[in-house]
């Protein structure tokens, strides 16, 4: 039984508040990713879980036991550190056997078990080498084997993939998932890389400024971000400032810096009153882009193209920049003095060049809106 409960966790260093309030229950066997920018308190939270830091407030339960004040060496957690922290004066197999040695397991048995774990991560041929002579990916595997060798209830991973190159990191993500399924242990994985979090996690916990802002399954967090910070952090988006101009029973019209009003569809027209300032998020994946000549002509009037009650919006702008990003092309488009970006896959028909007029359109139902305090409007 290794369900973990963190309640009201706080860590203060003098006047600095590293972690303000983290409360979450991590299910037995779950893989939770703590995702956040650097300085958000995610690593400190992990270190408190490991027992390497003592919280200044709050409690940590692993299973039914309160382990808040229990030191690291008496906890059933094991950590894979960011720079792997392999003992440079020990061989690879001695590193892996270290935890078992501390448990008092006899030499023959611990070497046997360590060898088995090295086989699991396909590093058995390096058993007698000095870990300092290994490549980053190999060190990563040894660090993983060392942590798994003590058969922990909870495996803690502190950005272990951040020092690997992209390809290797992606391979390791898949391997970590496999190991997670095989060992049926609770994993807590800290990362600042949203792709990594989305690939690995059963649930993602988003941290900002020492607080756990939102916890949920990856698609839920992505589609229903709780606030503007999460929306901006989880992917690139166009934030557009605006003011509510008019509400109708099923739509909200927002006067924006794009020089024209944007129509949002709503089931909840009372959520907003006229004059409220808003930030709208227009993600590249909801925007479709076509050449301006092929569209309808009503844009000259500045009115949104509304047909039979739909909330399709469209605007015309001029391509300023073309940025090739591998499989996608990103265009930055000047719209009435401000700038937006849209993306198209290379496979999409037709490419635009700088100076081309394009029409960008989207469904108002797909737009997310945030109040000035960052909270999301429930449309």
């Amino acid at each position, binding site marked *: 039984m290794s369900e973990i409960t963190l309640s009201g966790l706080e860590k203060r260093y003098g006047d600095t508040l590293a972690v303000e309030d983290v409360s979450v229950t991590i299910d037995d066997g779950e893989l939770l990713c703590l995702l956040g920018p650097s300085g958000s308190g995610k690593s400190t939270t992990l270190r408190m879980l490991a027992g390497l830091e003592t919280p200044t407030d709050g409690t940590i339960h692993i299973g039914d036991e309160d382990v808040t004040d229990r030191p690291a*060496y008496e906890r059933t957690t094991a950590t894979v550190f960011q720079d792997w922290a392999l003992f440079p004066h020990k061989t690879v197999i001695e590193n892996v056997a270290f935890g078992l040695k501390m448990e008092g397991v006899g030499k023959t048995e611990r070497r046997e078990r360590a060898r088995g774990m090295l086989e699991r991560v396909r590093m058995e041929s390096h058993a007698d080498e000095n870990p300092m002579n290994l490549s980053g990916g190999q060190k990563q595997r040894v660090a993983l084997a060392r942590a798994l060798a003590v058969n922990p209830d909870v495996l803690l991973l502190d950005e272990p993939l951040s020092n690997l190159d992209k390809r290797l990191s992606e391979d390791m993500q898949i391997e970590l998932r496999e190991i997670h399924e095989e060992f049926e242990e609770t994993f807590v994985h800290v990362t600042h890389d949203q792709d990594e979090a989305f690939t690995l996690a059963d649930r993602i916990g988003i941290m900002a400024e020492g607080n756990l802002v939102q916890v949920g399954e990856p698609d839920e967090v992505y589609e229903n971000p709780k606030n503007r910070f999460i929306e901006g952090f989880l992917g690139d988006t166009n934030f557009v400032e605006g003011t509510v101009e008019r509400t109708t029973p099923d739509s909200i019209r927002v006067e924006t810096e794009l020089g024209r009003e944007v129509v949002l569809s709503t089931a909840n027209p009372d959520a907003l009153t006229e004059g409220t300032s808003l930030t709208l998020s227009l993600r590249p994946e909801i925007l479709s882009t076509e050449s301006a000549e092929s569209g309808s002509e009503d844009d000259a009037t500045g009115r949104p193209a509304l047909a039979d009650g739909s909330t399709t919006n469209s605007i015309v702008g001029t391509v300023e920049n073309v940025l090739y990003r591998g499989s996608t092309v990103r265009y930055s488009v000047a719209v009435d003095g401000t700038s937006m970006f849209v993306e198209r896959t290379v496979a999409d028909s037709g490419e635009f060049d700088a100076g081309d007029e394009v029409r960008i359109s989207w469904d108002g139902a797909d737009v997310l809106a945030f109040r000035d305090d960052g909270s999301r409007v429930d449309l």
Partner: protein
Amino acid sequence: MHRETIEDALFRASYLSILAFMLLPLAVVVVTSFAESGQLLFPPENYSLVHYRGFFEETRWISAFDNSILVGVGTTIVATALGVTAAFGHELDDGRAGQLLAPLVLVPLLIPPIILGISMRVYFVRAGMDASYLSIILAHTLWATPLVYFVMRSVFSRFDWRLLDAARDLGAGPIQSFVYAVLPNVKHGIFVGALLAFIVSLQEFVMALFLSSHNTETIPVVAWTTLRQSLDPMVSVVSTFLILISIGAIAVAAIATNLDWLSKQLS
């Protein structure tokens, strides 16, 4: 020749001549120890090993030699234990107490040894430890501890503290994690610190003069009292032994670690 080559050569030549000028007295000491006459003259008229024989027949010198080694080893043990643990504790908790520690540790090095010697004499007489080996060891420890401490600060500042985290995380308690994760990575530094403590104790004279008795006097004390009576080549013999011990200790250190590493630790 290029300007840079000439500058290099000039720099080296002047550096070496300054070094040679400073080291020449050592050569004088060694050469005079082989003099045949009973007077300290340089260069000696005739050479012989007569004073070396004299040294091994003189019980006062032999016992001073024993005393010096005893005090040196004692100082090394106490100063190394104190210096290493202080530096380790300072690295672990760099709070307000730590900021006070560094200047506090430095204080004994800034007080003239003659003042330390007099005040410790008074102190140890009151404490009933007058003229004991322990009093000299403690006095030398006062000097040697800061040296060990500063060597270890520099060693620990290069230590990867995540290794300690990793060891604790894998179930090693406070002592085990120090022994298994820290010690193997800093043992060269501890060795260098211990060596410094030993050499400091071996050559310290002023405090030992105040604190020793006839039974506990160390080599520099005997050398001084002998010199005051007569300029005797025996002093040169003893000095030659001291020089050999120091060179021997550094040679052992150089072999045990390696010179390149040693110079890095001390720089």
